[in-house]
């Protein structure tokens, strides 16, 4: 059997179309129609991925993310019929890993599911270098190389790149990144982040104007991608 995916949605026709879709791709699918049922199922700890709708009848999806994150690292892919960025940001800040806005293309959803499943994080020992595609990050020696060539980064650029590399494919909100790099007092200063991302892109992107690695999620944050 493939990866175990829990599908949480209160719309019967979303479940009755998504379930055969995911099964046909070899996933082991179970379903829940309420936030309460989803939390119970997740707490059993046997899942590889949760695909979660935000508009649930009992507990809001954002709240489900928050409660699940209290003691689980299972990847959460949010499906949202709410297009507004603030909603996405709320869900991501509450612990979701990625979001897809309804209606979505089937292939897009499947691709996001593959990325989310690949991301099941194995904590790396601090001494081990992080290898992501053409990038190698040596955390102990504070060295970064691109295709074997050393890249000179400032300490903040190094910190940001390391954070990205440890969360590949995941949408990281401005708030999450600001907090991770500058601490909780910096969350209202997105311009710091924009400047830092800009300078990091100049050093690691082949074409900084059309980035390949550090992708912008408009109004939400960034996603580090090496696909």
């Amino acid at each position: 059997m493939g990866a175990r995916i829990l599908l949480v949605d209160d719309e019967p026709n979303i479940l009755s179309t998504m379930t055969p879709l995911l099964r046909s791709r070899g996933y082991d699918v179970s379903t829940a129609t309420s936030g309460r049922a989803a939390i119970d199922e997740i707490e059993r700890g046997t899942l590889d991925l949760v695909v979660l709708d935000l508009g649930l009848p009992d507990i809001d999806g954002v709240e489900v993310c928050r409660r699940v994150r209290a003691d689980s690292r299972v990847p959460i892919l949010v499906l949202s019929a709410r297009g507004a960025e603030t909603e996405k940001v709320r869900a991501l800040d509450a612990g979701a890993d990625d979001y897809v806005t309804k209606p979505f293309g089937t292939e897009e959803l499947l691709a996001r599911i593959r990325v989310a499943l690949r991301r099941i994080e194995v904590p790396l020992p601090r001494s081990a270098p992080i290898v992501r595609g053409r990038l190698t990050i040596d955390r102990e020696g504070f060295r970064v190389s691109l295709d074997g060539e050393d890249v000179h980064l400032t300490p903040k650029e190094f910190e940001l790149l390391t954070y990205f590399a440890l969360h590949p494919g995941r949408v990281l909100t401005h708030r999450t990144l600001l907090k991770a790099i500058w601490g909780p007092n910096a969350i209202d200063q997105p311009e710091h982040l924009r400047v830092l991302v800009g300078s990091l892109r100049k050093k690691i992107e082949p074409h900084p104007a059309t980035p390949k690695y550090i992708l912008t999620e408009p109004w939400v944050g960034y996603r580090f991608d090496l696909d």
Partner: protein
Amino acid sequence: MNQTTVALVLLLAVLATATVARLRVAVGVAVVSTLALNYFFLPPVGTLVIADPQNWIALFAFLVVAITASKLSAAAKDRALARQKAELAGTLLASLSHDLRTPLTAIRIAVDNLSGELTLEDRRMQAQAATSELDRLTRVLEHILEMARIDAAAIHVDRQWVGAADVVDAALAYVRPVFDGHALRIDADGNLQTEIDPRLASGALSHLLENAAQYSPADREIVVRASVEADGLHVTVSDHGPGLESSEVDQLFERFFRGQAARQRSSGTGMGLSISRGLITAAGGRVWAENVPGAGARFSMVVPGRVRHGTAQ
């Protein structure tokens, strides 16, 4: 009391009036205050003569306070109203966004599934899911269009002689799909006819029926009573849903208002009851809701029209 104290007390009165009442009233209070101050307290007391030119300043101060405070409070009220409108628009967008995106998503996946390899049984299920979501999209679209027609005051009343049962039958034809599995009891007498617009009446009734079907458990009966009385058509729809909070009864027919029970569910556009009221108002009638303790909700509508015996046809 000396003159200053009196003047300050009157000033407070003017200020208080200006914050709650309209500008004209506030100016009136300011003028009366000036006259009172002048007549009772300023020398020469007992006359409206102003001996000291400084008292003109008192009049001026009262007027300025009245006008300024009244303008400020009007601006604050405008802002509150604008905020309310913005909130409503936000609710509209969130609700529409959900009601359009969800069926589109299910249809898209179902169609993609159908182009893959499936058993015959699975194909049937996917096609069924797509069809039922298409029906839902159609309903949402119809709601939007009907609402737009009501907003544009583009509803024309086209009267015909009809019986109560005709209106109920037409309304049921619109909403047949949502009544799958619901027990329905219809009590419509057929002896009298009334001259109303059957399209508007049955359209309005269909939204009441749809509402009842949504909130009543599938195994509980929904009762429709329709009759032609001396003043026109009367219909009530009683359901066995969760009932209504007394605070909700007045708001139910407001656009995008969703009651306590409705917030627990994702279906429903929040437009149906408001459309129902729009149609009935256009027909000169009225619609209202009541809570029936221990039973559920009861919606009633009255559409006025001339009445005759059906046999005359």
